[in-house]
């Protein structure tokens, strides 16, 4: 079977260019955050916009192979994760006017895109694409859910980092550059709320699709179980704080654990079990 990049040279070029753009944008955000370099400050936002636009063009070209339907494969999922993370961060930056956390989010997005590019180069043939609104909503919302989980995990990590810096009287770079604890807490909780909404949509669309297919999906599938557990955790954590005042630090630890867990799961499942869901016997 042919590699899709070898038969499509514009796609090959865009795959490489996109990875480089992600690395460049992350580098610019990093240079501004750590080195306060004015050149990086000036060009990081245009670079972010350029990366997003290139990614959309890339996605259009990639899906055009199969009637603009996204296929379920590791490289497709990874590139969608990179795109949704970057899009979410783009909105955070432009709505909160705070550009100090870009490096941390974009570094993760770059990692996802880089992995996607490597896997695309190794892929043979096209992956199975899904048709129908239900499955499309299920897939897209699950990717947005993962991005929200990733952002909640990253902001929780930054929260704990700054918390410790202040407690230990280490008033250095992170103290100077990161947003304050309350902003980080708010960003985390917003990400959790969005994550919960998208997870709910994912589950709802999945159930509808399951009924439409006559129960063709195994309910004990590890992805389904994980999704339901995380959905429960997120739902509980949204309501537990206003109701009983759970410590934000404990919540931050939970979000980091969930993020690490699901990242590992998604990566491992994508590599070793490249099927959509386990089919029911």
């Amino acid at each position, binding site marked *: 079977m042919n590699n899709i990049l070898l038969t499509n040279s514009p796609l090959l070029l865009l795959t490489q260019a996109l990875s480089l753009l992600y690395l460049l944008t992350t580098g610019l955000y990093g240079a501004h955050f750590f080195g306060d370099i004015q050149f990086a400050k000036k060009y990081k936002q245009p670079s972010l916009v350029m990366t997003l636009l290139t990614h959309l063009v890339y996605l259009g070209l990639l899906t055009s192979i199969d009637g603009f339907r996204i296929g379920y494969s590791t490289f497709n999922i990874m590139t969608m994760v990179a795109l949704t993370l970057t899009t979410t961060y783009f909105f955070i930056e432009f709505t909160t006017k705070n550009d100090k956390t870009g490096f941390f989010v974009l570094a993760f997005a770059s990692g996802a895109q880089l992995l996607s590019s490597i896997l695309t180069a190794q892929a043979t043939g096209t992956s199975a694409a899904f048709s129908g609104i239900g499955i499309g909503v299920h897939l897209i919302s699950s990717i947005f859910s993962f991005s929200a989980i990733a952002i909640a995990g990253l902001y929780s990590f930054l929260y704990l980092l*700054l918390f410790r810096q*202040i*407690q230990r*009287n280490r*008033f*250095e770079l992170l*103290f*100077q550059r990161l*947003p*304050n*604890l*309350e*902003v980080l807490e*708010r960003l985390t909780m917003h990400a959790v709320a969005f994550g919960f909404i998208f997870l709910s949509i994912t589950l709802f669309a999945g159930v509808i699709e399951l009924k439409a297919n006559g129960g063709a999906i195994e309910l004990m599938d590890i992805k389904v179980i994980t999704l339901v557990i995380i959905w429960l955790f997120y739902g509980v954590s949204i309501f537990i704080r206003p109701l*009983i*005042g759970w*410590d*934000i*630090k404990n919540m931050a630890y939970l979000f980091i654990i969930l993020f690490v867990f699901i990242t590992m799961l998604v990566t491992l499942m994508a590599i070793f079990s490249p099927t959509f869901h386990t089919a029911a016997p």
Partner: protein
Amino acid sequence: MNIISVGVNHKTAPIEIRERISLSEVQNKEFVTGLVSAGIAHEAMVLSTCNRTEIYVVPAMHEVTGEYLKDYIISFREAGKDVRPEHFFSRFYCGTARHLFEVSSAIDSLILGEGQILGQVKEAYRIAAEVQTAGILLTRLCHTAFSVAKKVKTRTKIMEGAVSVSYAAVELAQKIFSNLSMKKVLLVGAGETGELAAKHMFAKNARNIVITNRTRSKSEALAEELGTNQVLPYESYKEHLHEFDIIITAVSTKEYIISEAEMHAAMLKRRLKPVIILDLGLPRNVDPEVSKVQNMFLKDIDALKHIIDKNLERRSGELPKVHAIIDEELVAFGQWINTLKVRPTIVDLQSKFIEIKEKEIERYRHKVSEEELRRMEHLTDRIMKKILHHPIKMLKAPISTSDSMPSRVDLVRNVFDLEEPNQSH
């Protein structure tokens, strides 16, 4: 054409000496007008603050040197017994300009990047302008200094970050809470330190400030001054600890006024929502064990000094950028001074050409019509401008190493047969 500056500041003399030399506004006016009216200086200005008294003079005589001015001010202040010329610094020409640029941009200040000095330089210039002792040179020098200070403020971070304990306390609170206007602040102790911290908090939009003090009248006075009018009795403020997000303590006491058990109980009541206690007392007011309470930030003066040290370190890191701005402006100022030196030659050159033109036009006045005369005038003006363009451009051009200003001026004066210039200011 020289500019001399002499003075005492925190680098050259101890406070007792600075006090002896400092001038009030009235003395300042008397001093500068005296210098000018006695024919010692064409222009004069005095910058007198708590850290420095510096004189900026455009001398009117060759005898007026740095030493002359040092003796002059010592004798003016009748401080000969205590103050010696060695307590003074002196600078000349570009050195003076560089010094004033450094002073205005606050890199010569006791606290690097402090924000008051520019206003004080502006005030010194205002006084000199008011008594008409600031002429073209000092005016240009001061305005360039203001421009340097503005560039330094906008292009560098030399003025960023807290450098006082009370302001560092606010900076720290802002790193925990995003909006101080939504937070409830308790100030325990209405003394000078507490007052300053409360005022900084107020300046950062904290409006819900409650004050408690052993002497109730003092807390009431401060609450009224801040416009919050919220006072708690000193005997009962501990019952309300859980209501506050920020607690500032600045009382004189040998015993801790807040214990770990009290804060632990308060934290449980407020469902572990983060609290910052800023202990500005010396000896400390709050039991250090309080810092072990969950979600509690307890910061004493030493911790706040860490912030100040880091900020000063960062400000020092900005010095190369400030020096680059000063160097850039110094070159532009030097070039302007040079154009000042060639100005009489340019004026003479233009006058000579106008004179020639007018004589020649006069010869034809009755031989041609009005219209033709107007055209001839227009034509000669254009020719004159074109001929003069290059010599004037050459005179105004920056000096290179292979050239010098007097030789250029002499060349132009000889070529165009101009009379010797006057040596006046």
